[in-house]
């Protein structure tokens, strides 16, 4: 076998250094460590120090404030963006997840910048005047990167978000022109109040570090790699979607009494490892994984196919696809990352619509009515609404996660149709600025400006995109908020047809909580945005109602609405009541002999398999009785959809439910 498999080179020094008294770990001061690195001779002993936070509260933060592994990856990608990287690659050994590498071609860290970071976690030089000296901020503006990107990171805890993922990691970094790389190997300490009761404002040891330099002949190259090779078992289980697979295959701990496993694997998944051998995959229905792209696809095409796969299921019996139903954790994480970090859209930026996509455009003028815009081919929404170029897609930043090059998975072309009276999607754009004149800056947090769009479409795909997403410097850490910042009106159905993105151009930074995953709702900028959004929603809903009402009237005039049976009238009444007479019609319910039917015309239909739901009808008038039963179940299903009862159910669960209703109806006889 290969030479390195047989010959183990001798160690330069020692395998491990064990300390009986952890509080006495060697710690080089920032000055001494930097001096040691500057004078470092290749092959000499690495320098040992401890990781320091500026205060104990920060130690708590570095220990892991994030809820999901994806959040930590987001922070590392954002760090790369702030370092002017044009490319970030996240490589995993999915679905095993024993090793992950996050590699960028950003400006890298000088020894001084690395040493500063190790000694001041949470006290980043970003956004400070010292950042320029360390090469991590612009010489002219501490709020920008050396190449002028507005900084997303704030206090310098981003790198240590890896505590969510791993107990130890390695940093390899190099700046252009340096004839060495700097390498740091870090073991993180688990935060515990019991282990350290010292002054809460004092420096706190958050880990142990070895730092050394490696000669580099590639003088011009630059970038940083973060290698995670002690991934926390809990994190590994999450990345492996262990909860899903245990539900599918049963837990190794055994089943609960009476437990019946009826969970199906997600439609798309990366597979799972075998319990007794993590190097092997477990076969599921004859295959080891189910990916929507092919190995031969280039990374951009592969990601497009992932996005398309979520849209395609609409025609396959999943009228309202949710990511949780379709994707395993890893694929959902990739999807979320693509929503979080600065990226181009999978089709185009909403402001760059050209008029050929079939949407109607409106401008939400400041404190006024909405104004229709010319949406003919050859026009640009950005120009028509005089938005300028303050908000646009980054052109020089790509993020690769294994096979996929990420794009923002929000589509604006070829949107699915439904039974809505309004078939044409509507997009409303706005540009707002609050200067809080007359209020002290210390109280207002300074001016707040943003641009935004609200897209109304008959159907938002996936359902997870219903809501509002707020981006600062084109990045976010939240998911779409389906309550639209707690919009008070009972317009649930219409809200489910709206997606809104807010692009902050000024302010708001201070309103974002430290984990970047929530806001301070009392912050003036959030309050101002909430008020604006709720006003905008009312205007959007009114416009859509007006258009729907006109469309409905036109259909009535044209005589296209047929006389309704009594059951149809009941369904209509319920539907109208539940939808505030929004002009939409209940979804079609189609029975078929083959349970899965694809087809764009049926994109809003509930497709039910006769064999699963209706069963066998024999004897006299079998066909007539079956058709009558189907009609009854069609109306019942429509009433259930009016109450959103079926939204959270899989196709199989929906069919089981309707079949149970059929059995009850049959039990009571004709």
């Amino acid at each position, binding site marked *: *076998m*290969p*030479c*390195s*498999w*047989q010959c183990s*080179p*001798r*160690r*330069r*020094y*020692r*395998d*491990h*250094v064990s*300390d009986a008294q*952890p509080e006495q770990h060697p710690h080089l001061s920032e000055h001494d460590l930097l001096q040691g690195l500057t004078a470092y001779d*290749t*092959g000499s002993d*690495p320098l040992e120090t401890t990781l320091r936070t500026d205060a104990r509260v920060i130690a708590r933060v570095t220990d892991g404030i994030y809820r999901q592994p994806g959040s930590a990856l987001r922070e590392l990608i954002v760090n790369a963006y702030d370092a002017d990287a044009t*490319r970030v*690659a996240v490589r995993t*050994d999915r*679905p*095993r997840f*024993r*090793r992950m*590498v996050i*590699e960028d071609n950003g400006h890298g860290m000088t020894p001084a910048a690395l040493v500063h970071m190790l000694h001041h976690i949470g006290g980043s030089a970003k956004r400070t005047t010292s950042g320029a000296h360390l090469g991590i901020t612009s010489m002219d503006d501490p709020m920008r990167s050396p190449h002028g990107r507005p900084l997303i990171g704030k206090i310098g805890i981003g790198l240590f978000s890896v505590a969510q993922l*791993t*107990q*130890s990691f*390695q940093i*390899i970094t*190099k700046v252009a022109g340096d004839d060495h790389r700097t*390498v740091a*190997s*870090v*073991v993180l*300490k688990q935060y515990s109040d019991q282990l350290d009761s010292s002054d809460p404002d004092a420096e706190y040891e958050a880990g*142990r*570090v*070895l730092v050394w330099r*490696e000669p*580099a*002949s*590639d003088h011009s*190259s*630059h970038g940083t790699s973060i290698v995670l090779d*002690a991934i926390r078992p*809990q994190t590994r289980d999450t990345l492996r979607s262990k909860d899903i697979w245990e539900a599918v295959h049963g837990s190794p701990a055994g089943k609960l009494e009476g437990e019946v496993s009826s969970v199906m694997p997600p439609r798309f998944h990366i597979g799972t490892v075998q319990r007794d051998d993590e*190097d*092997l*995959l*477990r*076969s599921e229905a004859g295959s*080891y994984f189910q990916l929507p792209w092919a*190995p031969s696809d280039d990374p951009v095409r592969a990601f497009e196919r992932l996005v398309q796969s979520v849209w395609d299921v609409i025609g396959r019996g999943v009228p309202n696809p949710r990511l949780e139903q379709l994707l395993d954790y890893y694929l959902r994480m990739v999807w979320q990352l693509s929503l979080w970090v600065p990226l181009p859209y999978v089709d185009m930026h909403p402001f760059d619509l050209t008029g050929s996509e079939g949407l109607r455009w409106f401008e939400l003028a400041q404190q006024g009515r909405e104004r229709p815009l010319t949406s003919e081919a050859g026009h640009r929404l950005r120009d028509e609404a005089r938005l300028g170029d303050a908000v646009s897609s980054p052109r020089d930043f790509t993020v*690769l996660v294994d*096979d996929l090059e990420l794009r923002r998975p929000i589509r604006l072309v070829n949107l699915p149709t439904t039974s809505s009276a309004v078939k044409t999607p509507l997009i409303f754009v706005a540009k707002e600025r609050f200067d809080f004149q007359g209020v002290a800056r210390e109280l207002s947090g300074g001016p707040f400006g943003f641009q935004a769009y609200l897209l109304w479409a008959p159907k938002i795909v996936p359902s997870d995109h219903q809501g509002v997403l707020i981006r600062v410097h084109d990045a976010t850490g939240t998911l779409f908020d389906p309550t639209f910042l707690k919009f008070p009106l009972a317009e649930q159905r219409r809200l489910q047809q709206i997606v809104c993105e807010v692009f902050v151009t000024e302010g708001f930074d201070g309103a974002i909580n430290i984990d970047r995953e929530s806001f301070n709702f009392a912050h003036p900028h959030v309050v101002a945005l909430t008020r604006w959004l709720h006003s905008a929603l009312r205007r959007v809903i009114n416009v859509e109602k007006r258009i729907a009402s006109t469309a409905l009237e036109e259909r009535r005039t044209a005589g296209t609405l047929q006389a309704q049976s009594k059951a149809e009238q009941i369904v209509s009444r319920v539907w109208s009541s539940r939808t505030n007479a929004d002009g939409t019609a209940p979804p079609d319910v189609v029975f078929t002999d083959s349970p899965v039917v694809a087809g764009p015309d049926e994109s809003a239909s509930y497709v039910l398999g006769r064999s699963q739901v209706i069963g066998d009808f024999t004897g006299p008038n079998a066909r007539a009785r079956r058709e009558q039963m189907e009609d009854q179940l069609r109306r019942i299903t429509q009433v259930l959809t009016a109450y959103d009862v079926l939204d959270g159910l899989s196709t199989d669960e929906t069919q089981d439910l309707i079949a149970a209703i059929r059995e009850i109806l049959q039990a009571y006889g004709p």
Partner: protein
Amino acid sequence: MNTPEHEIPDDSRLPTTQIAVDYDDIFAIRSYDVPKQPSRRDFLPWHRPRKQYVRQDQWADEIQWLLARRADGDQDLRYVGLPGPDLLDLRYFHGKFCQGEQRSLRFLGFDPSARPGSAMGEALNVSLQEVRSLPNVDQRSDVIGDDFRRLADDSSIAWQQVTSLGPFDIVNLDLCGSYASDSPGLDSSIYSATHALLGLQHRQSRPWSLFLTSRIGRQGVAPDTLSLLVDRLVSNLDTCPAFQQSFESQLAFDPRLSSSDEWTEGQFFSALATGIAKWLLGLAQTMRCRFTIASAAGYRVNDGSPALDMLSVVLRFEPALTISDDSSGLAAATEQLPSECDQATGLPPGIANLVDLDSRLSEDHNFRRLLLEESAALLASARYDVHEYRAWAEGFVS
């Protein structure tokens, strides 16, 4: 009164709920020790100048041959192999064929240093950053820690990785042990892995090459594997006169006349090298490939060895892209692949004409000097000290 009945019970004697807690499910590491020190990287036998001959005069020449047969625009170079933590060969190929060209290198390596906690993990991590910083390396390239033998199992992550990238232009099995060290018939062996990989390579429509570097001495060879390969060789000699004639004339002995124990070291080298090549030819025949030894070189790992004990051979596979003739006669006859017997006659000359690198370099000091300097430059790119290297390499004639 403190009678035993009134004593406060010791907690340890109380019945406890038996909940099995496996700490491995909670902790990836268990001690808060200072991180592991980087391992020292000594100069090793494959750093000697003669290895640069293999890279340059065997591997690079072969890649040049493959690229010359490419259509315009068909540019990327796909590589699977055992690159070691320094990634020396990948650096060399990139510099030779991709740097300054519109050609990307996409590789998948198997190396145990990619396993968590590996002694050479730090070295590999730095090497990977260096290599992936090169301008024409595909960013999806990677080195994984799985055992190459895992390829024999189609449920392995290793196999999934290989199938997502392959088929390949270059398969580089650069061993320092013997290719024949595993016993035959095992589910997980280098033969089963090679067999599986060739199944994937069956989808390759353009010529591709297998670089095989292996010890060929008696030591390290599994007896039952040797026996199997020799039996097949003898059988082929019996059934294919052209091959028998070629073998005898080129390698100057008849393996049928004595047992392998009685062969000289040189005869053993020739027979085993031909046996391995013959086994691979059998697989190539089922893949409908023309199979040739494009080049061969040998050297001594043990300086005192009476004969060569290391083989570096470049095996070329040229897919025929035709199927067997239509036996019904409806379709016209096509140009047919030469029979296995015919193809086998080319193997003995390939082995007989190998270049003895130790002799070649000891006789040509200028050539040796050239290779030494090229090795030094390559090792410098992998962070080795050039001066220390020169001092070390000067101690060898090749």
